């Protein structure tokens, strides 16, 4: 007789989805901090993409505005990168966000220790538990990442239209913007996973009694 316990992937998804839906408010709080950090990251990055697009267009009207706000517009100037100050701010905001997300995920795993212990009593393997949390975090990360990236891009676009006029839309580097959105979503999802993995692995390795004894 093969002594197998199993949790089909579809069932894991269903459990993760249900847990997000029922704890909607808590998920929303976690996701919101993710949205904000990703939005900020995308905003600065998309801003750079747009400026670079304007620069490449070599349209005199744009170049004039660009040089007025302090960019080096000579043809042999290096391509526009985020300034050290900008990078520093983005880095700090991501750091704050990482800490926030890890904190939120830590809380949400801790508050479910009893549930984890119970699932183990019912025959769950450690990795079923980790898998459910990973799926949950990925869903939150993707949702937060997409919303944040779109939000950040939208704000950057609006700002550039205000600054350079609606003609700027014609020289938008859409592929670069697309890449920026993609990386921002990946960053968001990665952060969310980072926050949930550690507590989930710790919790899943506990003996069922230890998990169930934890104060709720």
């Amino acid at each position, binding site marked *: 007789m093969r*002594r*197998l*316990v*199993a*949790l*089909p992937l579809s*069932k894991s998804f269903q459990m993760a989805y*249900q*847990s997000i839906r*029922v*704890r909607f408010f808590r998920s929303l709080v976690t996701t919101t901090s993710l949205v904000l950090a990703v939005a900020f990251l995308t905003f600065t990055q998309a801003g750079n993409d747009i400026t670079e697009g304007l620069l490449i267009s070599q349209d005199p009207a744009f170049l004039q505005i660009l040089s007025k706000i302090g960019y080096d517009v000579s043809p042999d100037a290096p391509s526009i990168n985020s300034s050290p100050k900008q990078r520093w701010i983005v880095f700090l905001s991501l750091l704050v966000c990482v800490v926030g997300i890890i904190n939120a995920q830590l809380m949400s795993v801790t508050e479910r220790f*009893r*549930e984890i*212990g*119970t*699932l*183990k*009593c*019912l*025959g*769950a*393997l*450690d990795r*079923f538990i980790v898998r459910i949390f990973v799926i949950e975090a990925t869903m939150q990360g993707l949702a937060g990442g997409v919303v944040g990236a779109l939000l950040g891009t939208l704000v950057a676009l609006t700002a550039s239209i205000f600054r350079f006029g609606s003609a700027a839309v014609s020289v938008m580097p859409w592929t670069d913007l697309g890449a920026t959105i993609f990386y921002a979503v990946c960053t968001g999802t990665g952060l969310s996973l980072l926050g949930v993995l550690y507590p989930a692995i710790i919790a899943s390795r506990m*003996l*069922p*009694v*230890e998990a*169930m004894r934890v104060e709720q």
Partner: protein
Amino acid sequence: MTEKKKIVRVTGVTKDFDLGKIVVKVLKGIDLEIEEGKYISIMGPSGSGKSTLFNMIGGLDKPTSGKVFIDEVDIAQLDAYELAWLRCRKIGYIFQTFNLIPVMTALENITIPMTFAGVSNDAALRRGMELLDQVGLTGRHTHRPSELSGGQQQRVAVARALANSPAIILADEPTGNLDLTTGEDIIRLLKELSLQRGVTVISATHDYKMLNVSDQVVWIRDGQVDKIQERDELDIRTGGLESARH
């Protein structure tokens, strides 16, 4: 007596809790043999180590020394898969605090162990509904634990414990959080199961209502087995109240 199978065997189990400065010796060498199909009550004052013993028998915690055999298999020798399998298929757990998954409905709670056991979704739902009927919760399948009373939650927990037709039901104070009549209902339910399906019921309790249905009562005192009484011995002493005073 001896020809009956011993489904649970506990030999020389001790459990210490290391609290840093002091080591609390909770179990001080428990030896116990439990026959298949019996209804066993583990009785003893609060703090005597009933729950601790319950956790050892159920493979939820590891003894400091000694061995626990389920079906003559030393559970300390099992790997993670086999242990999960044992918890899933062989043993059904019932807790004083019900321990239902709060985000799931009654039916979903009951089907989790079946999902782990590889039962197909349809079959699990069908059996889940049957079990709900059996514990008297027909029509409550869409309710979440928070929408059910304590007694109803414990019924769901009983149904969940039965999901994979385990050989053993371990119940740690199943009536501890319930009123008198609800508690009696749960006890009757467990007794019926034990009679109809030959399930071994092991229940830690200080609820004297349990004595009337028990085949055997194990008295625990201060981490040791004080005495083991058969049903007939209990009956002589007027329903156990005499022995309860001890």
